[in-house]
């Protein structure tokens, strides 16, 4: 997994609430058995007409947002299906950070496993960043994970919370399977105990 420490990039505004994983990556693209190549179909039904031409007024099709690295979105982003293809598609497109007032649980976890930082902020901070983001290519935002700050285009600073363990993994690009396997002794001990207590499992 690619490390995430500091990120400077254009923020794109998507004020819609309840953007679900079917919108992020429609199921017709889930038939792949790879993890890559989903970026071109990110937000497919909102981004393209049926004939494959772009829908000009969709935010990521606008010239000033084509290289966006950050999304600022409405409440409850990533609800719906558990498909990890959603963060894979965001990552493949180049999005490394999503900012919202709330995220669906599974999506939120999936982001961290893929080097994407989801940031939860109070409504007024999201409103402020949404406003910044609507300034197009002038909306350059810097996210500093180490210090847990977001710097807006006009120098204002917003701080954010993140789970210490998730932050550690993201900063160092750690594979958590490796970390867990280091605790194999605890898992062995648990299994031995459980086999006594609940042998029917």
């Amino acid at each position: 997994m690619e490390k995430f420490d500091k990120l400077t990039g254009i923020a794109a505004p998507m004020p819609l609430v309840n953007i679900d994983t079917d919108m992020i990556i429609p199921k017709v693209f889930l038939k792949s058995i790879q993890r890559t190549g989903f970026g071109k179909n990110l937000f497919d039904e909102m981004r393209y007409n049926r004939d494959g031409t772009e829908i000009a007024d969709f935010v990521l099709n606008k010239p000033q947002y084509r290289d966006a690295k950050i999304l600022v979105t409405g409440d409850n982003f990533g609800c719906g299906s558990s498909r990890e293809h959603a963060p894979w598609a965001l990552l493949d497109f180049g999005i490394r950070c999503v900012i919202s007032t709330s995220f669906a649980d599974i999506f939120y976890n999936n982001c961290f496993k893929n080097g994407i930082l989801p940031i939860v902020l109070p409504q007024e901070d999201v409103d402020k960043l949404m406003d910044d983001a609507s300034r197009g290519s002038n909306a350059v935002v810097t996210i500093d994970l180490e210090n847990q700050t977001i710097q807006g285009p006009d120098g204002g600073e917003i701080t954010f919370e993140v789970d210490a363990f998730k932050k550690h993994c993201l900063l160092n690009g750690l594979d958590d399977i490796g970390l867990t396997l280091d605790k194999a002794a605890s898992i062995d001990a648990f299994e031995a105990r459980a086999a006594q207590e609940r042998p029917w499992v």
Partner: protein
Amino acid sequence: MSPKTLYDKIWDAHVAHEADDGTCLLYIDRHLVHEVTSPQAFEGLRLEGRTVRAPDKTIAVPDHNVPTTEDRVHGIVNEESRIQVEALDKNAKDFGIHYYPVNDVRQGIVHIVGPEQGWTLPGMTVVCGDSHTATHGAFGALAHGIGTSEVEHVLATQTLIQKKSKNMKVEITGKLRPGVTAKDITLSVIGKTGTAGGTGYVIEYCGEAIRDLSMEGRMTVCNMAIEGGARAGLIAPDQTTFDYVKGRPHAPKGAQWEAALAWWKTLYSDADAHWDMEITIPGEDIAPVVTWGTSPEDVLPITGKVPSPEDFRGGKVEAARRALDYMGLTPGMALTDIEIDTVFIGSCTNGRIEDLRAAAEILKGKKIKEGMRAMVVPGSGLVRAQAEEEGLAEIFREAGFEWRMAGCSMCLAMNPDQLSEGERCASTSNRNFEGRQGYKGRTHLVSPGMAAAAAITGRLTDVREMM
């Protein structure tokens, strides 16, 4: 000992390791696997030279992508779907996990197969790379959906890195009125909490109306906990649960059964347990409901009218405007005036035998409206076989329904069962998102009885008029 909720008890029984910051390794008793969210996980294991830690606790079945037409015995035509199913065939074999291939009569939707085969038991931790894993909470099992990286993590370590959620109690008091089902309960709860209302919580459903439900109904309720944003939904096990589990192929037997039962009977929330949030809904207040919009929270009693964006506040105003436009509806029109093109009965929400019985009850001796496309997709091969034995298949066929093989089918429309642009469907599934059942397709979520009623009249219909 301090009082605990059911969730606390199951959680405490499964913590294999706890770090200073409260991050836990939660041991997983059952890992269910399907073809769409697992190939990359198995690939990851291979790349790292890892194995499946507990193949005995890992159960795989293809469901999302499989065709549901009878000709599937001759092989899957769509190449990408076939590749995914073949990948699962191979992964199950290579890693030695339990497997129900497409042509096994026990094949079906993973969340129907698990309980049916007795893999899901009270007090267990159950995960699957699918958000509707919440279904298994009906047994008093802590069950939730995970992403593909977590699938790989569970395969390799049989644990999941977790932090504890908060406790929410949803109590449905009293009795349900005639024509009101588990589906109406679960949709009504989401209508009340909103799709993000459960975020950060595990919900325990309780109260007389929940106790009165069969296991099938309880599964319907827990299935949609995720649609309310919760990590999981739970119902405390009781005699109804034990009766359902007993004698299933992988349920404990003999002395083991007695030992299991003794523990299962301790699985309830203590009277003075702490709840971070509590919601009470009188069962009598719940009506048969339908969704009008593109989020499961867009719920109204069938007797209602299509709302207008001005009825909402904040970000929901724009969302409602977009939803009405997408759904092609005008504010103020009666929900019962909405004309339907297609009816879909099936999915892990409502694809069990009780659901088929409820729909058949309404359809008995009747015909679906001319021009209507209607299909029943049983949740598993065994549900299908039982429905045939009970004569339900005959009722559906005579009414004009297609009688399909088991799978997810039009619930997510990854296989050829899809809506076309603008086509409007009354569906017993769980998601009415834009494009969920096909590009620009329009979905109204309903109970099986309501779906059957709509098939007959050709419009959304109050099932109580047909009872």
